Structures are given as C-alpha cells and as structure tokens.
C-alpha cells in the first residue's frame, strides 16, 4: 500500500515508544508466607501442595506435602490443624478444610500405593533414632531421604508410639498408621522393635552411630495423691489406652469416672463408652472453656453421651463411689475449693492428668540439662552432648503428633548439617500474607465442605472411625477454596488488568514477568492481585 505520509501508519509501531521510562514505582512479584504454612508445626507448605491438589494432580500434591510430613493419612486424622485456625479464608466464609484434604491425599496415597523415592546417594553415615513415634519416624524419614543409614530402636512391640498407644482407633485406624509406617521402612529404614536403649553412649559406640535422635514419648502417667480405699479401682489413662492395643481389654465397670481435662481424658472417656460403660463422666476442676482438650473433641464426646462435671475435684475414691468437691473460679480464673461436696457412683476412676517421659536412657550422658522432666535442646535440636539430638515429647514443647513430626524434620536437617561439619541455617522467614494484602473480591463465596460423621449408635458401640474422609469431588472443591495467600496461582489477573500490556505470561506453571520496557508503574496489578503476590517498590533513583 502506498500509504499517505504521516496520516496512515503501520500497525503496532508504538512498540518503539518505551513507556517504562514514565515509571517511578515498579511492581515486583513476591512469594509471601501464607498463614497456614506459618502456623503449621510440621512446617508443611500447605498452600504449595493445595496448588497441585486444585488441579487434581493428587500425587504431585502428596509428594509436595510429604517433603515435610511423611504421614499425611495420620496427620489428616489426628492433627488439630492450627493451619485452619490461621487460614485467611476464615475471615471470608470458613477456613479451607486443609486437614480433610490432607487426609484425602494420605488415603489416596495408600490406595494407589505411592512410594517414597529412594535416596539419590548414600552418605555412609549411620544414625540412631530412639523411639518410633511421630517425631522419630519423621526424623528417620528425612534422614533417609538425605541418604543416611537410619536405625530406629523402639522399646515397644509395635511402631507408632503415642499414635498407636495414645490415640484411640476410632480416631486413627491402625491399618492407616501401619501403612504409613511401613512406607517409611520401605525406604530402607531399619526398625528394631522391643529394643529399649538402656545406655545411649554405649549403644552408639557399639553400633558405630555417627549421631542420635532421641524421640521417646511421654508414656508415664502423672499421678496425684488422692485418698483411696484399698479396693478402689484407680487406673491411669495411658495404661488404659495402651491396653486397648493388647489382647485383653481393660475392665472398667459400668460407671467410669475420668479425671482430667485434656484430650487424653476425652479419648479415654469415649473409649470407656465404647467398651460398654453405661456412664462415663469426666471430672474437671475448671469450666469447659478452660479445658485443654479441643472443643470439637469435647463436642463429639458429649454427642456420644460422655458426661462432664465441671468445677469439681476428686477428694476421695471409695469402693463404687467417689467424693468430689465443688470448685469456683476466682478473679484470675483459678479454681478454688468451696467446701461443698458431692458423691458420684464410680466403678473405676481413670486419671488423665498428664504424662512424663522416661529419661533413663540418658543416664551417663554428660553435659545434658533438664527442665520440667524433659531434656533441653538448642535451636538446632541438639542436646548439650554433641551428636545427640532430641525432639518430640522429650523436649519442652506442645505434645502433639504434628509438633513431633516438625521436630523430626528440623532435627534431621540439623543432624545432616552437623554430620557434614556445617550448620543448617533456616531460610529467612518471608513476609506474612495477611488478610489485608489480599483482594478477596475475586474469590467466590464457597462454604467449607463438612466431613461425614459416623452415626451416633455406631460411635457409641464400636471403634469404627468417627470422622469420614472426603471423596474426590469434595476434596477437589475444598482444595480449590484455597486463596493461595501470598503466592501466585496463575489467575492471569495481572496479565489481564495491565492497561499497558506490560505483563508477560510465560505459560502454565511458569507464571509471569513484568515487561519493564512498557510498565508505567500504575499499580493496578498490585491492587487487583487476588492473593497479594505482587508489591510495589520505588524505582532506584
């Protein structure tokens, strides 16, 4: 075309005009720390694995998840999911059911027989892990992944520690636990059951261990001095729950009183119901809202007919009856006796007043320090004795499976570094993706999927699992409720809303780049990024 000068122009020629020079602020993609990840004691990259689950790639999701936690099927049942408490979606409608998706992935992995990959290379280092509970298994798994030889010494007859001996079957079916333990062993981890370490240093020397991770559970029930008749039947919760795993089920009688307010108290009371007790009464010295037990467990227990007697202490245990004293709360919320008494019928009293750790294996190990019955460790999870690390119930912290798994993972990293003569440095913590950083307009209203519950009759009479799992449909739905806080989930918004076409879409999984040749720095992309994964920075002057 013989185009007239100036009036008629060749298309797209404005690319010669680099409007990026107009900019005084520039957008930059960031990865912020989602609150769920931040809250996870096991350090799971929740948002990261949900991203895969959203697209239905469950195996990728599971593999991403198990980088932090080798037992998602267990965790998806027993974790008290602090992630959900922190979830930003909770401020929109209800938190994402992270725990239920995790369980779905765990169950799917068992169903599909997904295995962990063998380590890339062997380091030749030998590490002793004491205790096959969550923390020990977690450490063993992580260390094995790093290529170390791992031997677990477990004093008990079966692996699992408190997961097996502390958590009732109706919350954690044993075949699930067995499957996830076995998968760790399948990586080449050696397990020695019924093997109690009596002298740690000796064992390490004899078997040429280069380091040890101690993860002995708190199996010893705390006692309290209650005047009791000789014939009074007083048991402890740990023993009751442990005996559930053996041949002979405990004899508890028709009326069972459980003393304590923690999760173990709830577990044992619900177990008592299932064993046939007509009455299972929890006696607790404070009120429901002060109970350490999780509220949903209290609720489930109440649904199953467990009774609660708040503001009461047991003063005396007689034969077939106990005497309780009513309490009241003072100004500080502390219970104080009132001097009023009551009598309850009770065939047995189960004490659920907390547990201690058996630290006998540490006899003769120098340079250790202790606090409240547990061993003190440094930031690197190492005790005062070089090469001996500890975690889980053995060290000062919350005693949950999730914390234990987290300790195992962290300790493994430190052990690995220590063995190499280096120090493991945690990556700096990213800025938290708080609710204010999101543009939540873009998320559709979608309420949480409720997991199915076993019917009440069967809950009261069997040890079948109370809470069901999600099917694929609703697991997918639930995964897709994730807001992907602080991390790009490729919604294309920045790409679309840029008035200057200054965002380059790199293709699926590759995310985006800014084309600073044309970006004028208007900030629309930042404002309209749903998940808060872009920030504005001043141009270097």
């Amino acid at each position, binding site marked *: *075309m013989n185009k007239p*000068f100036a009036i008629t*122009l060749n298309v797209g020629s404005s690319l010669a005009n680099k409007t990026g020079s107009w900019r005084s602020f520039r957008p930059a993609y960031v990865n912020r720390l989602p609150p769920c990840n931040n809250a996870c004691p096991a350090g799971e990259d929740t948002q990261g694995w949900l991203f895969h689950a959203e697209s239905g790639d469950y195996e990728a999701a599971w593999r991403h998840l198990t980088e932090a936690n080798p037992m998602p099927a267990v965790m998806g049942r027993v974790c008290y999911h602090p992630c959900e408490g922190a979830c930003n979606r909770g401020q929109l409608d209800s938190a994402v059911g992270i725990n239920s998706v995790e369980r779905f992935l765990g169950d799917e992995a068992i169903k599909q027989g997904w295995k962990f990959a063998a380590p890339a290379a062997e380091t030749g280092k030998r590490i002793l892990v004491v205790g096959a509970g969550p923390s020990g298994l977690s450490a063993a798994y992580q260390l094995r992944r790093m290529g170390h030889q791992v031997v677990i010494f477990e004093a008990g007859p079966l692996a699992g520690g408190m997961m097996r001996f502390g958590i009732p079957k109706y919350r954690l079916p044993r075949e699930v636990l067995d499957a996830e333990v076995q998968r760790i062993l399948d990586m080449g981890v050696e397990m020695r059951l019924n093997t109690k370490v009596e002298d740690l240093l000796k064992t390490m020397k004899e078997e040429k261990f280069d380091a040890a991770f101690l993860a002995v559970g708190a199996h010893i029930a705390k006692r309290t001095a209650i005047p009791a008749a000789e014939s009074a039947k007083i048991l402890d919760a740990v023993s009751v729950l442990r005996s559930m795993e053996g041949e002979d089920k405990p004899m508890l009688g028709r009326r069972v009183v459980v003393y304590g307010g923690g999760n173990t108290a709830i577990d044992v009371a619900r177990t008592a119901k299932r064993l046939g007790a007509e009455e299972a009464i929890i006696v607790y010295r404070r009120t429901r809202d002060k109970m350490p037990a999780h509220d949903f467990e209290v609720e489930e227990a109440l649904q199953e007919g467990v009774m609660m007697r708040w503001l009461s202490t047991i003063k005396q245990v007689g034969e077939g009856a106990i005497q309780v004293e009513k309490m009241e709360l003072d100004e500080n919320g502390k219970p104080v006796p009132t001097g009023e008494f009551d009598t309850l019928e009770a065939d047995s009293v189960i004490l659920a007043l907390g547990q201690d750790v058996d630290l006998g294996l540490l006899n003769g190990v120098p340079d250790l320090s202790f606090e409240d019955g547990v061993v003190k460790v440094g930031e690197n999870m190492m005790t005062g004795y070089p090469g001996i690390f500890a975690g889980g119930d053995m060290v000062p912290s919350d005693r949950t499976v999730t914390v234990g798994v987290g300790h195992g993972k962290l300790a493994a990293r430190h052990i690995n570094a220590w063995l190499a003569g280096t120090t493991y440095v945690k990556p700096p913590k990213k800025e938290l993706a708080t609710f204010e950083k999101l543009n939540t307009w873009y998320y559709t209203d979608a309420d949480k999927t409720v997991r199915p519950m076993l019917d009440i009759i069967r809950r009261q009479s069997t040890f079948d699992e109370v809470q069901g799992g999600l099917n694929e449909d609703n697991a997918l739905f639930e995964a897709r409720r994730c807001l992907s806080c602080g991390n790009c989930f490729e919604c294309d918004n920045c790409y679309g809303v840029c008035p200057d076409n200054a965002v380059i879409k790199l293709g699926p999984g590759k995310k985006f780049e800014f084309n600073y040749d044309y970006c004028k720095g208007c900030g629309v992309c930042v404002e309209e990024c749903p998940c808060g994964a872009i920030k504005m920075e001043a141009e270097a002057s």
Partner: protein
Amino acid sequence: MLKQCEGSHAVAEAVALSRPEVICAYPISPQTHIVEGLGEMVKAGEIKDCEYINVESEFAAMSVAIGSSAAGARTYTATASQGLLFMVEAVYNASGLGLPIVMTVANRAIGAPINIWNDHSDSMSQRDCGWIQIFAETNQEAADLHIQAFKLAEELSLPVMVCMDGFILTHAYERVDIPTQEQVDKFLPPYSPRQILDPAAPVSIGAMVGPEAFSEVRYLAHAKQMQALELIPKISKEFEEIFGRNSGGLVRPYMLEDAETVVIALGSVLGTIKDTIDEMRADGISIGVLGINSFRPFPVSAIRRALSHAKRIVVLEKSLAVGIGGIVATDVRMALDGLDKRIYTVVAGLGGRNITRSSLHRVFRMAMHDQLEALHFLDLDWNIVNKEVDRERTTRRSGPIAENILRDLGQTKSNVG
C-alpha cells in the same frame, strides 16, 4: 444516447454508469432530484451492488462517505448550500485523509437570510478545503464531469466536488448525450484504492500529526492538487477519445485570440455570456470569455497563458467575499501577477438574481471604456440599499434588512384590470 431530460437526471444517470458502491443521501434543494433518482435506480436494481443510505444529516452523509471510501468502496454523495456548510468538518477530513469521494454541489446561496436559489457562495466557502472543485457549464458537461471526477479522484486519491448551478442546471430540461455502460466501463476502471481498511493488511488511518510533520502533510496535499493540473486535461482528452466530445479540462476559452476585454466566469452563466459576446462581436467589439472549469486546483499558468493578450479582465462571479469583494478575482489577480492589466470584479447573480444579456451588455461596455468601478454589483438596486443605509444610520434598531427591503418593494403589481 441523446435524451431530453432534467440536469439532475442526467447526473444521476452518469453517476449510476460510474458503478458507485455507496451513495449517501440527505435532502437539500436543489440537489435533491439527483439522489432521488439514484435512490430509485438502486431500489429498482438498475444499479447493482450499491448501498444507498438515507442519512440523518449532511455531516453524516460525508462521514458515511469517509467510512465507505476508506473501506474501499466507490462513494458518491450530493449536497448544496447549508448542507455543505453543515458537513464542512467532514469535508476537510475527507480530503485530509485523501479519500476519493465524488460529491455534487448543486450550487446555492448561503443564509441568512435563507435563500434557496443559485449562486456559488457554498462551494466557494470550501475553496481551501483540499477538494478538487470542477464547474459544469451545461448539463451535458455536468454528466460528463461526474464520470471524469471518479477517475480523477481515484487516480489521485483525492475527493472531487462537481459544482453545477442549482436550479439553472439541476432543474433544466435539455438535451444530454447519456453515454453507454460500455463507454463508461472502458473509461473508468474499477476502483483500486491507494489505501484501504482491510483486516488482511491492517493500517491506522487518521493519526494525530504534530508540528514536526504537519507542514509536510499540508504541503503534500497541495502538491497532490497540483498533480491534478496535469491530470485533468489528460483525463479530458481520454474522455474525448472514448465519448467523442470535449468536456472538462482546466479552462475554456471562447473568442479569446484577439480579445482586448476578457470576461472570466464559472458555470452555467458562461452560456449567457457567450450569447452576449456573440452579439457584441457582431457589433465589432473585441471581447471574449474564459471559462474556468477547474477552480481547485486553480490553473494559474493556463489562465495566465490564455490572458496574455487581453488588456482588461472582467471577473464575473456568483459569490461575494464580504469585506474584499471577489473570490475568483483574487485568484485571477494572483495568476496575472506582474502583468499590466485592468481587472474588474463583477459580483452577479447572488441568491438567484437573474443575469440577463442586457445587464451583461451594460457592464461589459462600461468595462471596455474603463468606466467600471473595480468592484461592481450587477443590477444592484441602489434605491433599496441607500434607503436601508439611511435607516441604519438614523435608527439604532432598524430591524431585519430582508424584511425592510420587502416592505420597500411593496406588493407585487399587476397591470391587468
């Protein structure tokens, strides 16, 4: 084929033979009969593959024409007077964008006072708009010029305005030789646009041009019009070869060779002037006439050449540049720059005032004797004018001029019974 028909009809037939693809129509006297005729022909299927669009204003008419021409369609419209003024912004735009639209202007006065009769004020107001402006002397020429106009417009990629006197030509029945389709097809090839809106080869048309290039763009527009000075005679010659008659061209000399006095005029008045000159020649007077066919571009050299022997020039024009006088005369003066010739401006025929042989005789003779003032208004009624001037001098609110004049003229008289 010879035909006795109305001028508008002859033009409509010529346009139809030119195979237009888009016709924009908006009524305004005296061009209406042309688009009426075309409308009927399109509806009857006599013009094939043509969109006839009844628009809502002249502004829209030219705007639609801009769109269709830019999109590659041969486009035609017609207007006059106020209509031309209403479309002015688009008129300039069409030429600025170099779109080969052909438009008839059935010349008519411009109000106020509103006046539907013929003069050249309308197209003269657009003398600088960048369109080629050619004037028809007869209906035959009007018809022929439209066929030539499409060729001219499309070769240069410039719009062409064919000016013909409203009513005097548009509404006159006279003999016109309507060409055959074969002749027209042989003369006028299908439209091959110089630039086009086409998804297959996209361009941006109508960019904003700043001080850095605007002068160049304007100069190029001028240069393009200058090309028409060569193209118009060439096309006229090609036309003659196929159609067997001379039509168009830049200028039309009549009795010029030895003429001491030369009258210059545009359009249909040339016929009356020629008759007058024949009579004066019969009386032995040395006078001739030069018709200007192409007013834009203004054929400076051709005019200068044609007038080389003339002693005096009378520019008779149907328009008035208020505040100076002649529009055409100004251009003629430029053409004769440096030559020693008397130039008289005669403003005539405003708003349909008849230009009669007797009046022409009078002014031409006055000019011959150099008794004519430099700016003369033909047949001006000084009685009325002086009365009004007096009235305005004495009365602040003297009222509307037109009404005052009508009052002075009194009732139409009848000398019967």
